[in-house]
């Protein structure tokens, strides 16, 4: 009985080390979104390409879709763009974009040069839609279900692997609901 007491501190030490090792493998920049499971926050903003038209959250209903926050000043978005183009080519899911705190001509040129994977793009010049959606670093992508409810959020660039292993299965599952 007594011997067990002497082993206790060592045991406690290993438990704490276990927590630390677990912490090392986590990315502190990934902040869980409290918006998951909630309805898409309201917004009405002008569209990027067709200034006269608007994009609002009611447009994001009726089908499973991706909403991607991006900007031309964001180098990670450039890397992600090719993957988005590839996803769009497969036409398995509708993709919407929010051009976040960007310059309109830059963004239009970007799409002309690299292709446009989006069904429609909102132009969030002030970045206020970004704040309402809890965006803290582009690119960020939300998966929205048929009822307009946010079901998943991906922070950072989507790689082809991310799409195949994480996002596409979620989209396919939601499309069957």
């Amino acid at each position, binding site marked *: 009985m007594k011997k067990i007491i002497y082993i206790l501190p060592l045991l406690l030490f290993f438990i704490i080390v276990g927590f630390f090792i677990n912490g090392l493998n986590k990315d*502190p*920049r990934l*902040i*869980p*979104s*409290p*918006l998951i499971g909630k309805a898409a*926050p309201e917004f009405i903003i002008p569209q990027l390409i067709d200034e006269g038209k608007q994009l609002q959250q009611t447009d994001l209903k009726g089908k499973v879709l991706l909403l991607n926050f991006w900007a031309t000043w964001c180098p990670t978005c450039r890397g992600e763009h090719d993957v988005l183009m590839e996803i769009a080519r497969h036409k398995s899911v509708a993709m919407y974009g929010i051009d976040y*705190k960007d310059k309109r001509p830059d963004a239009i040129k970007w799409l002309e040069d690299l292709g446009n994977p989006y069904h429609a793009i909102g132009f969030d010049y*002030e*970045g*206020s839609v*970004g*704040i*309402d*959606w*809890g965006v*803290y*670093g582009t690119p960020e992508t939300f998966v929205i279900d048929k009822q307009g409810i946010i079901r998943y959020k991906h922070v950072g660039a989507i790689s082809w692997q991310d799409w195949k292993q994480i996002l596409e299965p979620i989209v396919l599952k939601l499309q069957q609901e």
Partner: protein
Amino acid sequence: MKTFITCIMIFFSVFIQAEDQRFSFSDPAQIERFRELTEELRCLVCQNQSLADSDAPLANDLRKRVFGLMSNGKSDDQIIEELVKVYGEFVLYRPRMTPQNYLLWFAPVLLVLIGIIIVVVMIRRRSELVQVSQTDLEKAKQLLEEEQ
């Protein structure tokens, strides 16, 4: 040298003025309130800085948001609630007193209490070990007296 110093002073005064113009309050108490609020909230980009300290563009946007909510007459709690709703409790430097945070809040007190209990128990046990029976004591006394 004097002109040089003057130049530096003028240079900095411009910055301070610019800051004031962006978030102008008529009431000094509001300025203080704004400062306190933005110091309580974490910048999500540079996570070890508060909104008040950070120069990140997002921090500036969030300061603007806080300023806007204050101007609309929202209370501190309402403003904090708005941000928590969007960014989660992560924006708070001070974790809330909710059941899931009880362990976080009370663990230090609990650990100190456990430590005190262990120390008390150990001291008691040691003092028990030192206790010598009455007969042994008398024997020892006798031996000492004999030697003398």
